[in-house]
């Protein structure tokens, strides 16, 4: 199989009904064929963009996005060891994501997680009903640049602030950006609790992370809202 065929097969895997692991042999074939992995990553990114466009158009749905995001992760696991020095193939940021304590809503969080994965970030998804200390431990242990906090319930909102407070108390706040979102989370609330950013939706969350990590600013010094 030549390069074009292999890359086309890789892209196709993002649209068919295959299981997430089934993309791995294709990625391995690409590596074994000596194809530049950056080129393969660009092909995968293009496919993911098309999945995102189809979602926006209403032709694909949330599970399709989530599966495509997982497939991208599997591809990157194969490609990453073969990148040359100085090449990242991704934006290089690590994001810890979760829905805060007392809240089991996951749709918004999953959408944000998929957008960040698709956008080239390494995602550490802690799930739902996550206590404040778990966010802090994950950020410290994984060396994350961003902590992203989701909440849908009013009574869970105080935990977004508690994560920020805890980061301050353990001396991590100036090393980690904190972004927040969710149904009742407004830009005003985000600013008030001392977050670095707020986005209204998942696409906005990706833009937000792009901008805070590329903007040269430091955590706990600025605030950015993407409405």
């Amino acid at each position, binding site marked *: 199989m030549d390069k074009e065929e292999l890359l086309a097969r890789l892209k196709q895997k993002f649209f068919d009904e295959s299981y997430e692991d089934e993309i791995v042999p294709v990625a391995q074939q690409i590596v074994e064929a000596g194809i530049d992995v950056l080129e393969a990553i660009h092909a995968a990114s293009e496919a993911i963009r098309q999945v995102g466009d189809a*979602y926006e158009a209403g032709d694909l*749905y*949330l*599970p399709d996005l*989530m599966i495509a995001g997982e497939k991208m992760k599997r591809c990157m696991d194969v490609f990453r060891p073969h990148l040359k020095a100085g090449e990242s193939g991704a934006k290089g940021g690590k994001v810890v994501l979760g829905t805060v304590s*007392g809240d*089991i809503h996951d749709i918004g969080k999953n959408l944000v997680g998929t957008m960040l994965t698709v956008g080239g970030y390494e995602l550490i998804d802690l799930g739902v009903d996550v206590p404040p200390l778990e966010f802090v431990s994950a950020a410290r242990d994984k060396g994350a640049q961003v902590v992203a906090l989701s909440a849908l319930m009013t009574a*869970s909102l105080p935990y977004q602030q*508690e994560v920020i407070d805890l980061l301050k108390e353990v001396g991590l706040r100036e090393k980690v950006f904190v972004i927040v979102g969710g149904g009742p989370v407004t830009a005003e609330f985000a600013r008030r609790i001392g977050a670095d950013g707020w986005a209204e939706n998942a696409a906005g969350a990706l833009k937000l992370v792009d901008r805070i990590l590329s903007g040269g600013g430091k955590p706990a010094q600025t605030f950015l809202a993407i409405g």
Partner: protein
Amino acid sequence: MPVDRERLLTVLERAHTGPVCETYEWDTRVIPGTLRSILKKYELEKTCDPVNPINMNDELADRFFQAGLEAAEQIGLLCTDTHRVIKFSREELLQGLEAAPAEFTVGENGQEVTFKHRNLNDPTEPVWIAPLSIAVTEDVFVPLVEGIAREEVVDCIEGPSLETVYGHKVRAGSPFELMVGKYQAELNYEALRRAGRLGMPMYVVGTSPTHYGVLGGYGIPGGFKPGRDIVLLLSPVEMKTTYELLHRLVQVYNCGDGLVYGGSWSMIGGYAGGPEGATLSCIACTILLYTAYQAVNGASFPYDLKYMGNCGRKALWALSMVFQALSRNTHICANSVLNQTSGPVTDVLLYESAVGMMTLAVSGATSCTGTRTAGGRFTNYITPLEVRFAGEVFKRCAGMSRERANEIANQLLPRYEDRLMEKPAGKSFLECYDLKTLQPSDEWRKLYETIKEECIKAGMPLA
């Protein structure tokens, strides 16, 4: 209707012995795959008709119900604490629906409310439960609930939701939540006493996202009362349950004479897919919730992930289909929630309420809970006036034909549907109400009168 112990124990046991399934597999394979194959089998794909947002095809509604029954049987409820699927046979599901009452009465002291199963175009007045659990500050809670309870069209109280308890933030899952369970009951009693409607039934506990509010406020001295009030069990999407919900169910059983509301939702564009998938998911989920929770009221309702509401064409179609399917094929007292995107003192909020409530009234919904003013995004953005308007539409449109309702919907939708994504916030309760007299500002009252007049001209019987 007390919770039956044997049925309860069967559910609790199956939460530990049912087939194992991880949440990711459930969300990405089980739900979308099963719903897709059943939509295909019953030839329900691409049946959504945004031109006629209120379904008028009875055969299609019946087919959706049969498909929903099959989906409920095939899928079951995932308990996310044990990662086990609580499955039911078709016979058990039908028995679950059969066991639910076609009529029941709650409330006391002259404030009793009777819920009755409603048919399509049924002139029986539906029940209006207000408001949704919109966050409010402690100083606003009592006057707001008093103002809402003073509205004659309001039958039961559910929200709003307290941000603080005695000045301290309510934190989900913490002892503050246990405390706010009883505190909300006490504040509600005070508000209802001031409004002269003590005894009104309540849905509990609006402020509390976990089981602690119910444990702290229901069935205890001075708290919410079994037999008079209804306990909310709101299942996460799609077709999931949790220990938190099952704890509440056991608490209702322990208190005796308890009544359960089983509710959930499905998002168009979410795990279930498009409007047809969300419709199917809602019907299946409703059947499961009435079976698993022994609910007397409730249902799963659709809304659109794009604008987080259900007053646009696709969501209205799905809403009408869900409630028509349930109305024609069961005797349950199905309840919907109407999700508006916009805030007080905006015309969008009133248009959304008008079209949404009319859709539910003609589609056989027994009751509705709302308003979800401004999508619940802002603290104190809820007022009695939009609650009044939505209730008026809901009750007075009962008995209208679906054909007439479609004509009216198609007149009103163009006036707001392009602005659903804008979600104008409007003004807070404090900005558009006099807290002493509990009267709306002139601006808000005039807007209400203007839109009401437009609705009358469009053919709604609101005069």
